[in-house]
């Protein structure tokens, strides 16, 4: 069995920085694993600007931000990288089960850092009635399909939720020639950063409906529309669309740790960083946190 000082699960912004931090802290053998086929986690699909403003004092796009760390990792022989590899489970005996086309393998480690990111709430978790047709996506999924797959999801799109990902996708769809019919937000104020509200919604005159929500999905095979309800008056309106994108929030992805918790507390050899620890709005703060944690865990 291969042995490592530190196992890092997830090679997004957090995992990459943590690996570099660990090297700085003196770790000689770091294993960085990601189930995806490239480094960066969500960064490669974030083709918009707005990354690195505080860390690099530059306005980078997501892929460029990832590329800077990828270049540093390429010069760090202490870090072994395994892409296209899923960590299936972590055991209390400090081993992990890895699965890839190369085989099923158990590795041993001294410490482990989970940098697994976050998952999106699916539409089924929201209180939305009606049919379950094709044409309903979560925002991150939509972002990946559009930016990395080059696919078109619809021509008339409703976006539920006004977080940053939703706003960035609203602009993206508009730039690709689709009509964002409406962005619907249940709160009285938009959820995302002010700079995104300005640059993505106001600049493109996308109708933003505050204090409103989607109560029903219509359409048998493919979506044909949604019912939007005004939360103050209770009035409902049928809004025709051919795609619904939900940006209803992210949940830290900590499933691997579940079996190891004792009364909610993880063992001392296990840490969390990035969106897996809590949801970060800005990647720079992920990087700073992960660098420090990686270094600290290497020294422990």
């Amino acid at each position, binding site marked *: 069995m291969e042995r490592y000082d530190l196992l890092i699960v997830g090679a997004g912004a957090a995992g990459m920085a943590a690996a570099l931090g660990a090297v700085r802290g003196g770790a000689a053998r770091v294993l960085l694993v990601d189930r995806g086929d490239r480094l960066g986690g969500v960064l490669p699909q974030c083709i918009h600007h707005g990354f690195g403003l505080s860390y690099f004092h530059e306005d980078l796009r997501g892929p460029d931000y990832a590329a800077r760390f990828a270049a540093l990792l390429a010069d760090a022989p202490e870090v072994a990288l395994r892409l296209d590899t*899923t960590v299936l489970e972590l055991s209390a005996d400090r081993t992990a089960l890895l699965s890839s086309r190369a085989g099923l393998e158990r590795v041993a480690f001294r410490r482990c850092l989970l940098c697994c990111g976050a998952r999106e709430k699916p539409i089924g978790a929201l209180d939305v*009635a009606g049919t379950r047709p094709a044409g309903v996506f979560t925002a991150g999924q939509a972002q990946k399909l559009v930016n990395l797959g080059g696919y078109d999801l619809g021509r008339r799109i409703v976006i539920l939720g006004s977080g940053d990902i939703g706003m960035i996708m609203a602009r993206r769809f508009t730039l690709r020639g689709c009509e964002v019919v409406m962005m619907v937000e249940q709160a009285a104020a938009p959820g995302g950063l002010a700079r995104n509200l300005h640059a993505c919604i106001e600049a493109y005159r996308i109708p933003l409906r505050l204090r409103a929500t989607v109560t029903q999905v219509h359409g048998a095979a493919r979506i044909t529309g949604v019912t939007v309800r005004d939360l103050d008056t209770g009035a409902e309106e049928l809004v025709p669309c051919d795609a619904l994108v939900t940006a209803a929030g992210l949940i830290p992805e900590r499933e691997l740790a579940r079996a190891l918790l004792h009364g909610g507390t993880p063992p001392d050899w296990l840490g969390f960083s990035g969106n897996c620890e809590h949801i970060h709005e800005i990647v720079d703060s992920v990087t700073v946190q992960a660098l420090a944690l990686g270094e600290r865990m290497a020294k422990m």
Partner: protein
Amino acid sequence: METRDVVIVGAGLLGCFAARALAAYALDVTVLEAREDVCTGVSRANTGVIYAGYDTQPGTLKTRLCVAGSRGMAALCRELDVPFSRCGSLMIACGEKAEAVLRRKYAAGLENGVEGLRLLTAGAVRAMEPNLTDRVTAGLYAPGAGTLDPWALGIAAFENAQANGVEFRFGQAVGAIRRNPGGFLLETDTETYQTRAVLNCAGLAADRVRELVEAPLVRIFPSAADYLVLDDLSRGFVRHVIFHEPEEKGKGLTLVPTVSGNLLVGPTERDMAVAPGATAAAGLAELRALCAQIVPDLDLDLVIRSFGAVRPNPYYVREEGGVWQPEARGIPSFTVLEEGGLVSLIGIKTPGLTCAKPLGDYAAQRLLAHLGGAARRPDFDPRRRGIPNLSAMAETERAALVLSQPDYGRIVCRCRGVSEGEVREAIRRGACTVDGVKRRTGAGMGRCQGGVCMERVLALLAEARGVPASAVCKDGAGSEVLHGTL
């Protein structure tokens, strides 16, 4: 034209099990299914409970088949390699009226020959299920009840029937049936089929299919149901299927700890909405309110999905002023009509899943009687192997599989740990849509509901079928996932 011995209309649970039963005989059998895959109708949206057999009227065909189906389910699932959880069921009362119902069901169960039934005190119920409300006053325990994924059973029967020589043709909606000297001529949009006998298993459309050749007699008056599905973090919250018998008029709550560790909550009973299969906000709210009463500690933030279902309620009809009106009372047993070589199963609702095999066998016997019998096939093999289920394998076994077939090492679905190998195998076995892959592998059924894996499944479907990803459908025709490629 080639003459078949039997054409089965509809490839739901019943069509698939009838096909499997007929496959044991030297007969030429074809199944015509309107949709692109098996089990896309009532058979995929139901409660998935294997009933013990105390709910139905003693002496009816329904009761006989239910008790037999329930008893034989473990052996059947071994034969067909389908996961089955014989978890037992617990019917609960929170008052005297409901307790009286429990006692009646207990008596009916004894008469029906249901084994192991026990009436329980409130204390005994709470000891078995500590998460139930302390307002429970009594329970009825049936150790023989259980649960499985209904589509998994139907798909297994389909694969086994096909392996034994039955021909399945998809995208074949039967639109006309004519009697002729040789039996029947069936027409779809693209083909005609000559056959000696017809088995009508068209589910919600079985009345209309029958009326292509016969005068109205039984019609389906559908009603709707809503369900909630909870994340498998709810595993173990209840250990038995729970049927809450309401004290007041109305529908109680059913809780099913599924074979995958999710908790299924529902169904409601309500009028049809405009769209078949849609959920209603009121129905979902009713389920949440019932949960708050019966299982107050259940964390409803764990809901990951809701879905709607349609009940095919059968009624005898008579003509009144040019309109076919239903009789006041529904039909208590299964409706199996035999009309000169046309056998129709109409409005088979609960416990049609429990009875799928015995009812398929029964229909097959009716057809054989009409055909004057047939020889048994000596090479008929009732066994079927499922797609390798990685998460159920021991580590060494799994490692060996990945070594020989690397696709089983690449994980596609993060929630259920489904590999690319399983997805490819599902496609090879007939899955042609994203939902078809989901039913066969579980990919997309977990807490992220396909947020991560759908794209990969889409690509694998497109690759296997030699079409662009934009042509791949989520479900039936017209449900393309994407809108095109920009």
